[in-house]
């Protein structure tokens, strides 16, 4: 068997294993679905009642933002899951088997991708109920979904590296909170950035999360001509900028985390 087909087969075996856990731990499904629903409703009605967006309803403005926020937070599951496997000695077991060295990481990130897709669908349905609309073609909407999932997948690999280095699931989750909260809030996620202080505006403009959100808004048709976007390159070409970020994240963190995995053992 070629090493590629071995990697694919072993990766699928581990993916199945991780998905069984989702099936057996109902809390996971509840969190993956309930908290996004809660966020959609909270933001829609709390912020939505106070923040007027010119030319578009807040629900339409909000949904692409909350999609992006949720998938970025979702990536911590990857890191926490790997740290847990490491802590429980499972990585030792896997590393003592003649399996593909990428399989544990591929299996983890692919399973989390499935979880992210589920979250987006649940949020989307909730959004449709409270006033979100897709105003683009089916193909564009699909491209929007694919772009969100691609960025989520790339973030998963970044968090995989973090998980293997930090080794404690709770710490992974708490530490990444400190980074991910500002990352998803200093952006165009929930409010227009026009009135941000200059420094924050600059960060928001180049923040990849802003580009993901802007790209999703364009692909779902949730923009209005009157709604001004920053004229920086990143937000004028949000799809390209998101693709670039995803490619760079994957190019750096796939090989890096596989390398760390190959040398890692529980303590």
């Amino acid at each position, binding site marked *: *068997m070629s090493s590629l087909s*071995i990697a694919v*087969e*072993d990766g699928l*075996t581990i993916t*199945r*294993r991780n998905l*069984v*856990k989702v099936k*057996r*731990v109902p809390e996971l499904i509840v969190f993956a679905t309930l908290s996004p629903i809660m966020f959609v409703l909270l933001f829609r009605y709390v912020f939505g009642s106070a923040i007027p967006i010119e030319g578009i309803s807040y629900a339409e403005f909000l949904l692409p933002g909350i999609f992006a926020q949720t998938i970025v937070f979702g990536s911590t599951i990857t890191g926490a899951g790997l740290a847990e496997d490491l802590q*429980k*000695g*499972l990585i*030792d*077991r*896997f*590393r*003592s*088997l*003649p*399996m593909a060295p990428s*399989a544990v990481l591929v299996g983890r990130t692919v399973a989390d991708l499935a979880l992210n897709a589920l979250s987006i669908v649940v949020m989307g349905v909730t959004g449709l109920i409270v006033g979100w609309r897709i105003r683009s073609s089916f193909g564009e909407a699909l491209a929007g979904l694919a772009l969100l999932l691609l960025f989520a997948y790339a973030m998963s690999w970044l968090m995989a590296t973090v998980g293997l280095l930090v080794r404690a699931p709770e710490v992974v989750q708490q530490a990444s909170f400190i980074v991910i909260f500002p990352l998803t809030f200093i952006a165009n996620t929930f409010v227009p950035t026009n009135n941000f202080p200059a420094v924050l505006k600059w960060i928001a403009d180049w923040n990849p999360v802003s580009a993901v959100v802007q790209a999703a808004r364009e692909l779902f048709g949730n923009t209005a001509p009157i709604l001004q976007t920053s004229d920086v390159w990143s937000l004028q070409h949000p799809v390209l900028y998101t693709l670039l970020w995803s490619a760079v994240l994957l190019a750096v963190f796939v090989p890096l985390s596989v390398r760390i995995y190959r*040398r890692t*053992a*529980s303590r």
Partner: protein
Amino acid sequence: MYATEKSGGELSGGGPSVRGMTDAIVVEGLVKRYGATTALDGVDLTVAEGSVLGLLGPNGAGKTTVVRTLTTLLAPDAGRAEVLGLDVVRDADRVRAVIGLTGQYAAVDEYLTGFENLEMVGRLYRLGKREARKRAGELLERFDLTDAANRPAKTYSGGMRRRLDIAASLINRPRVLFLDEPTTGLDPRSRLAMWEFIAELADGGTTILLTTQYLEEADRLADRMVVIDSGRVIARGTADELKAQVGGQRLEFTVTDAAVLPRMAVRLRPLGLDDPVVDEQARRLSLPVSGGAEVVAEALRLLDGDTSQIFDVGLRRPDLDDVFLALTGRVAETDTAASDATTVGSAR
């Protein structure tokens, strides 16, 4: 046939100097450092094919580091290690295909059922779906887990998880098996059952390297032992050889009143190979002697009927705890520590 190989193992295994075609594990000058700490400081050992080596040492001695190096999880900083003639660094993949590892913590996925755990490992050994399922069924049967086969491993007791873990390490019928503290944290009954499984595997011809803190365990299962401390080998040999290093047997008296001990010591002195040792606190007198039961009779004769204060008398052979104390200057883990370990294990 295995019995022959085993007795051969007793002659050739353990030492670095005697090496033959039959050595399943060869370790030479193994060094592993973690920053400023030296975990292994030049470890040499061999394990004859089909034999069981007990790797003994206190916590932090380097036992697990040896196992992790041999199972390709860690790369050594110096020295080399071979398993069935395959270098653990250069031929890591081929080594992985012929070994089995049961680590210190039962490495089972607690959300998968027992069957699913074994099937997954079988698939990862690339047995194919049908063979992996067949093998999973066989091993569950063998380790008395058939009734629990379709329950998530989360619901298993500590002993069951350990059995499942060992079963997982046997999926590929490994010729060399590494067991890292296989009974730590198990209750006495599960430990006995585990010993029986390990003894069965050894009888079947599997080469086993077993680390343990329990000397009784090594005494019971291992053909030869290597004792390490602070990353160095400090002793090696069979249980009897190690015991001989510490010294011969002792005659021990326990009395009800410590006041009689000095008088007894004077009377018994001619019988001993050396001066009697009196421990007034423990109300005990201990005398190095040679000979069998007749020594006891002779001792009682020397005391000349002055025996009303004697509570207990007996010949005591050194056990591995004595060996350990003599070699490391530390008391080995006892069963009290074992029950502590159980508490810690279940709390985790």
